[in-house]
């Protein structure tokens, strides 16, 4: 069994969340009215919905609330908070099931989240919402299906939707976009499928919008590559550019984070297969000077596949720290923090974007009863204090760290 490997991080604590330590890719900080700093975590899979942890003292995180999912055939892998509102994405295992959509909660008392509303996205061909972005308190940008849209291929069941939640009791869709050719009725031809098991769908994963460019949405479009949308007119998003590097690369573009001041985009893939079957899954540095023509210029270096591939589970890129544009979140346009499943959490200095340099890593020892035999570091968040929160996908729960670089 591998020991914890740690370099230029200091581990402050681990909280296995009382036996439910499988966390997805929703992590969000709330400062409660009483001053407590609450970290909201989305669970990777049923039976748990979300868990709230008091991280005011990151050396001593305390569980404060937890919710169960209403059904076992669903997951709530993504969540965000703005102020005292929590938005949680609900995706069902198969199309046609319920509840599929997102739910808004009033979390003014973190111990007692109260439902405000539910936005229904269920339909015979929809699994609901996989991921949502909620940063400005006004709009939710998400990857979701809908009753009035039918995908030509069931794997393309989710698309980009903008929901106005200014009145959180009555969320209203105000705009949508999908890759032309993916939905019934499109005049464009259907995109060529990726071969065999590498066909993971032409649909968005992360849908990020930042105050520096409120007229842009940055989409990781899974098998469609990276997509930049012009959303100046939210009712009619228009594609600015698409960078599609697969094949020959395997697909599953996950997250796009613009480093605005530096004309750079940081793009992650998601590794979705164990034992290196979809290697390499990378973090890309992209020249964003001309947004119509993004040019990849580097990838973040990783230890060789053979050193991690037999540790168990997945080894490759997944989530990035997204420079979350909310108070109480950290911001850097020089440091990239990325998660790599059994490759742990890794930090890169991209002062020279042509040569990203690894400056820190944290690869915890396999958590007890890890089903894959290895840690599967899934997501990362950094607060304005520089405290790093990272999570295991299956059992390890939450790790709190300090950056020491």
């Amino acid at each position: 069994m591998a020991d914890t490997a740690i370099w230029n991080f200091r581990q402050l604590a681990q909280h296995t969340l009382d036996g439910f330590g499988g966390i997805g890719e929703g992590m969000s900080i709330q400062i409660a009215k009483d001053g407590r700093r609450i970290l909201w975590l989305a669970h990777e899979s049923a039976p748990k919905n979300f868990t709230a942890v008091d991280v005011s003292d990151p050396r001593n995180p305390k569980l404060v609330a937890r919710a169960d999912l209403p059904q076992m055939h669903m997951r709530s892998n993504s969540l965000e908070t703005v102020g005292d509102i929590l938005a949680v994405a609900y995706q069902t295992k198969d199309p046609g099931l319920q509840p599929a959509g997102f739910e808004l909660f009033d979390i003014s008392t973190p111990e007692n989240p109260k439902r405000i509303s539910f936005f229904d996205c269920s339909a015979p061909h929809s699994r609901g919402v996989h991921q949502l972005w909620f940063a400005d308190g006004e709009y939710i940008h998400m990857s979701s299906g809908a009753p009035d849209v039918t995908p030509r291929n069931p794997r393309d069941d989710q698309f980009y939707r903008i929901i106005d939640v200014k009145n959180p009791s009555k969320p209203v869709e105000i705009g949508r976009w999908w890759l032309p050719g993916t939905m019934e009725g499109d005049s464009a031809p259907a995109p060529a499928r990726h071969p065999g098991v590498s066909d993971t769908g032409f649909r968005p994963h992360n849908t990020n919008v930042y105050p520096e460019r409120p007229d842009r949405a940055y989409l990781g479009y899974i098998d469609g590559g990276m997509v930049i949308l012009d959303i100046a007119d939210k009712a009619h998003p228009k594609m600015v550019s698409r960078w599609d590097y697969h094949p020959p690369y395997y697909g599953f573009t996950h997250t796009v984070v613009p480093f605005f001041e530096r004309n750079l985009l940081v793009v992650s893939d998601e590794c979705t297969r164990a034992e290196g079957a979809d290697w390499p899954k990378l973090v890309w540095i992209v020249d964003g000077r001309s947004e119509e023509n993004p040019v990849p210029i580097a990838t973040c270096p990783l230890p060789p596949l053979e050193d991690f591939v037999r540790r168990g589970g997945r080894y490759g890129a997944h989530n990035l720290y997204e420079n979350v544009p909310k108070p109480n979140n950290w911001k850097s346009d020089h440091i990239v923090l990325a998660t790599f499943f059994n490759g742990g959490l890794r930090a890169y200095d991209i002062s020279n974007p042509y040569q990203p340099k690894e400056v820190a890593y944290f690869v915890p020892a396999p958590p007890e009863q890890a089903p894959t035999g290895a840690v599967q570091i899934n997501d990362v968040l950094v607060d304005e204090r520089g405290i790093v929160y990272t999570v295991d996908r299956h059992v390890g729960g939450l790790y709190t760290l300090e950056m020491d670089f």
Partner: protein
Amino acid sequence: MSLSPFAGAEAPLFGTRQRRARGPRLPVIVVTGFLGAGKTTLIRALLDRPEGANTAVVVNEFGEIGIDQALLRASSDATVLLGQGCLCCEVRSDLQETLRALFIERGRGAVPSFVRVVVETSGLADPGPVLQTFATDRALGGEFHLQALIAVVDAPNGARNLASMPEARKQAALADRIVVTKSDLAEPGETEVLLAALRELSAAPVRFATNGEIAPDFLLDDPLERPDPPAAAAEPHAHTHGLVTFPLILDAPLPWRAFEQAMAVLVALRGADLLRVKGFVAIRECRGPVVVHYVQHVGHRPVELIDWPDADHRSRLVFITRGIGREPIEQLFAAVGALGG
């Protein structure tokens, strides 16, 4: 200022500003000293303490470190694992290759993820080339940072070695810190003679170790981050055998171009005699101090720190030279300062 299209609005001159001189790099502590001075005992005592955990020791021969063979577990033919996450590695060809291999093994998880390296040099080694190994990115400067050069001198023989061996003098003169060992075995008066000889050679802080026991921070901390109480006299040290040590303080910040040019002149004309120059420089374009380190003709990559460590924001350098006094260097910096505008 920067020509890079990716520099951003407020591009730091030397890349990401760092909290400390080593930035994210692995700290390296180089231990020099003559055969029998007590280097091995010192290192072994460090490894036995909690502060010494996760240390990689690099030696010329395993025999030198004198580790109980029963505790060792072979990792590869050149590396053995010790307790406490420590490992010991033998220099097979050259130091650079050994350290590069260790760095790669560490990233792969093939050896424990050590947090520092201690290099034990062979007794007669001139520390100059070792210091240069860490200077440039092409060498090891991208991954490793020379944190401290420690000279170990034993009280019974130290003064005699300093008097007769140029390598011993250079080891002491270049050191960031000096450890005096075996003072309990010295004849009356020998230790005092040794201390006086050291004071003539070096402004570095001196401490005593008994059976290798010494406060670990004296060995491990970056001297720039934790300056010891000034053994560093304000006046140049005596010119014993031509070695000169003096501090240089510059009141006004310089443009980087001016500082760089002054050093270029010095390196071009007297590089071989510029044994070591190290310290903080106040650069006009920078918020924090810039850490510079030159060893003869080679300059380490400058690093800008996020902040000054204290209220004194003047440039503070220590020069260790062969026969170059303070005056011409002060004049040189005054001239480039005046011209560099």
